[in-house]
């Protein structure tokens, strides 16, 4: 076959990584899109072969290529089962970067996405403003009206919004938190971007629980959005810029035990900084930073016990966020923490580590498919009889909460930190 000249940006596709795939097909069992859509192009193996075809010049990174790359949830469940260690997450991210070099988004979509990613997420003050607007919209009833009269995609997006009555809890609101009792150590906290606006109580609970465990919590200034959404949507350079910013902000990390992250997606992104900055001047700093990053559950799970007096009598189940289970291989600590709370009855749900369909902004861009994953997830969760679904990522939390609301169920969805705070009877509103 005649080879076409390689497309622009194709050098981003790493031949070495692509070649680690031996096409054994084991990934097909864990890929949610393959199980739903049933075609090889929407399986990890197929997507890699498409990338290989682009990389070898046999295929252009056209709209169809883009479609299959963006239908991927980037949940990385395939990485967990892959026998040869193919780094699928970084491959699909590179593929999307190639796509971004080529495609023209619909006339309104690019500015809208750029607005959100470049103008909003990295800036705490603008996020605070967004939070205020949302709170006013909810209080005034405007939000309810909008929900009532919206249709199509917008309706779906609005459905994802949680109760935003609580005031946002942003880095500027606090610089350092003292522990309760004698200090065990000192940790830095990665704040995030959208979560503190939409789920501020999670942040409050995180801080309160860390303090209760005896840690002084430091919130470095100048930190910003981790860049995960940017990287997952093909905006590699933007992600690198954010990474550099965070490395600078957390340079003081040398004086803390760990950098704690309570959002699985952010945690995976931060741990991915060395890969993101490979071959640049900051690679070394990124490696050191990475060594310090710990997910909230990962860090506390090592402690293996609940602070004295903590107890809670209820049934819970746990939803593994993809980027915690597959992206960071942290699965046992959250469960250990939950099971260690006196009074808790823990029920394992079926396919706990299968994607709920949130996947960054996937639920905004592919609502129908996202709903199918969500329905499956809720069926399994509800089947356990648990009163509370515990998770460890804001995207999952919003998605599950929206699904519960839609189905009219009474199950609660909380972040692990919120549950621990509740068990310790900590007022997460201080």
């Amino acid at each position, binding site marked *: 076959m005649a080879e076409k000249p390689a497309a622009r940006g194709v050098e981003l596709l790493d031949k070495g990584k692509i070649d680690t795939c031996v096409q054994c*097909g084991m990934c097909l*069992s864990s890929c949610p899109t393959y199980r739903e859509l*049933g*075609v090889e192009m929407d399986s990890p193996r197929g997507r890699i072969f498409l990338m290989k*075809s682009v990389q070898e010049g046999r295929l252009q990174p056209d709209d169809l290529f883009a479609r299959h790359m963006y239908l991927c949830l980037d949940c990385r469940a395939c990485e967990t*089962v892959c026998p040869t260690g193919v780094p699928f997450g970084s491959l699909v991210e590179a593929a999307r970067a190639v796509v971004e070099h080529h495609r023209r988004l619909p006339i309104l979509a690019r500015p809208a996405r750029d607005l959100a990613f470049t103008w909003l997420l990295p800036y705490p003050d603008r996020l605070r403003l967004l939070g205020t607007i949302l709170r006013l919209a909810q209080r005034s009833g405007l939000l309810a009206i909008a929900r009532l009269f919206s249709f199509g995609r917008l309706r779906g997006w609005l459905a994802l919004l949680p109760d935003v009555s609580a005031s946002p809890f942003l880095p500027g609101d606090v610089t350092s938190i003292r522990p309760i009792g004698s200090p065990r150590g000192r940790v830095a906290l990665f704040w995030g971007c959208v979560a503190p606006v939409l789920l501020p109580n999670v942040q409050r609970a995180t801080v309160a629980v860390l303090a209760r465990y005896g840690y002084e919590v430091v919130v470095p200034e100048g930190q910003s959005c981790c860049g995960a959404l940017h990287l997952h949507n093909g905006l590699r350079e933007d992600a690198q810029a954010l990474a550099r910013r965070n490395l600078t902000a957390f340079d003081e990390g040398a004086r803390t035990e760990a950098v704690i992250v309570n959002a699985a997606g952010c945690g995976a992104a931060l741990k991915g900084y060395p890969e993101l900055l490979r071959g640049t001047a900051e690679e070394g700093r990124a490696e050191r930073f990475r060594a310090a990053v710990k997910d909230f559950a990962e860090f506390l799970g090592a402690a293996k016990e609940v602070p004295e007096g903590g107890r809670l009598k209820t049934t819970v189940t746990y939803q593994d966020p993809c980027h915690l289970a597959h992206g960071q291989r942290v699965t046992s600590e959250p469960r250990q923490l939950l099971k260690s709370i006196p009074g808790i009855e823990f029920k394992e749900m079926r396919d706990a580590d299968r994607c709920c369909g949130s996947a960054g902004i996937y639920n905004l861009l592919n609502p129908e498919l996202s709903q199918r994953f969500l329905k499956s997830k809720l069926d399994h969760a509800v089947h356990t009889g648990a009163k509370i679904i515990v998770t460890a990522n804001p995207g999952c939390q919003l998605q599950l909460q929206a699904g519960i609301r839609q189905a009219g169920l009474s199950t609660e969805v909380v972040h692990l930190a919120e549950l621990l705070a509740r068990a310790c009877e900590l007022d997460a509103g201080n």
Partner: protein
Amino acid sequence: MRISPALRQKIRQIVFDGKVLSEPGDLYCYSYDATRMSFLPDLVVEPTSARQVADVVRAAKEEGVPVVPRGAATCTTGGPLPVSGGIVLSLTLMNRILRIFPDSRLAIVEPGVVNGDLQAAAQPYGLFFPPDPSSFRVSTLGGNIAECAGGPRCLKYGVTKDFVQGLEVVFPDGRLLDTGPLGYLRWPESALIGLMVGSEGTLGIVTKAYLKLHPIPPARRSLAATMFRIEQVGEAVNEIFSAGLVPAKLEFMDGFAMRLVDDFYKVGLDREAAALLLIEVDGDKEGVEEEAAQIEAVCQKVRVKKLQIARSIEEEELLWRMRGMLSPTVSRAADIKINEDVVVPRGKVAEALRLIEELARRHGLRVVNYGHAGDGNLHTSFLVDDDPEQKRRAEEAVSELFRVVLRLGGSVTGEHGIGLTKVKFLAWEIGEEGTAAMRKVRDAFNPQALMNPYKIFLESGAEAIQGDKRLA
């Protein structure tokens, strides 16, 4: 191979509610299996019913277009590769478990059902489907039937062909036949079933299967014995059979494999041991206790280096994970892993291992041996660097491996099939008369070999065709 617009149109009409894929990206994604080879098809069709399969097959035959059936393509011998282009007919949309009759231990399934999904569906009834190839989470039952899949449990329970009680088949001329669930009890249906299982898609396409299920044994126990000498594997297996026992699983790995597993996973394996034998017994609780005790006694009699009995589910899972980890571990130990699945009569396992080590040494290659000690099915893997000289020596080593195995009265393939990769070796094993007899059968079902061409039998002109269509 071109497909006329008229045929494309006809097929789109037939498969109105399935998928007909023709974009370049689609075709690429159906060009490969697990052999890393790929050949470009002209069209990919995913029907939703047996009638659609039959109609597509007939329409294709009328125009002389090859049809290549495909499941999940975890095949390691090139079975679903469209060597001369044509239509890849994927059965993955036909994935319903139609009915389970628990009291009759019977499941009626479509071919695209994933093996693991049948296990999950049968489990609430206290039943399971014994063939457990390592691909069970992905491979389809249609594929399992086409290859006559095995797995560790087949020592006690049998292979796929022992569990197929009936089939619905589309023949290469588009005719449909359903034997019903009792086909295995009557000739000629039993002969058809016997042929179809393991026919690698060259005699027809299975569109429904009536499968026998087995009660899930209430109890099981796993043991692991490390050996001073590799011969002790054969000795232990022999003694176990002599005692009148048939364990559910008898798996082994050689010392090299043990060290590789230990390197990567740090599970504390004995790095000096010559081999590891993993044993599982299952059945009712009382029986399992007794069998485990007897096996313990056998291991002591054979003077194994160390015997470990799993005392909890976690311990048991760890033992079997080591066996399950083997294939990926071995893949990571070299640029290229060349894995063959040869079989020797079970009494000849020790001799086979000795001869294989010797031939690997002579070719200057690293070799790992592991597999199903109980039925003589060895997975011999040559570890090769990405170097043309080594690759050439590996090819020679594989040929010699087959010669050695055949001289011992064995077979060149226990589970993976002949497919595309072993067509040269079929006649080595079964001779010219045997090959001629099989060809007669193939020609009666599949004249001009339009269904899955170039598989199993060495055809003239094969090299040229392969060169022409091949992508990788």
